[in-house]
């Protein structure tokens, strides 16, 4: 499934034009991206939480050469699925 399928479902379910539906889907993900970029977490009840976490620098190794290198401090995004989503994936 891609963004196009999400656009399609809004177009079908709510009856907006393709253009409107597409703009809205785009806007949803843009808003989420802006929020996460600021380091803010997003909680979508029934779906899950997107959390930005800061990682300390650590030593890593180039798997090809075996050479040790420092992996710099960085911020990473993690997704924690909600119970509802986990259950939806496991119902028979």
């Amino acid at each position: 499934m891609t963004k196009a399928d999400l656009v399609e479902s809004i177009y079908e379910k709510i009856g907006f034009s393709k253009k409107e539906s597409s703009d809205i889907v785009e806007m949803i993900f843009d808003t989420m991206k802006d929020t996460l970029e600021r380091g803010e977490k997003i909680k979508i009840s029934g779906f899950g939480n997107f959390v930005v976490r800061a990682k300390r620098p650590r030593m890593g190794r180039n798997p090809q050469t075996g050479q040790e290198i420092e992996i710099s401090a960085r911020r990473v995004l993690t997704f924690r699925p909600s119970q509802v989503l986990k259950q939806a994936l496991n119902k028979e």
Partner: protein
Amino acid sequence: MNKSDLVDILTEQLKTLSRKEVDLIVDTVFDKMTESLSQGDRIEIRGFGSFEVRTRQARQGRNPKSGEKVFVTTRRVPFFKVGKELKERINGGPEGAAEPKQKVSGE
């Protein structure tokens, strides 16, 4: 930010739609994504990331409270991989590759 904040922001930006309509659209998006994953489908949102379903093997677990052994059956879990664009934006955000803050406990 929660879903209601997201709806507020979008309503303000869109102007042409009522809050109720925007709320319905946001719900539709996440419902559709849930439905798609529950069918085992992969979701790819360009610039944001992708979601897929991974299968965890059945295993012998333990109730952490009582120490009692329990059998955990095979289960499917959603897995999110951040997209390249978002990954870079988060890492190079306004605070840069920031020093670790206090551990944020996600619930």
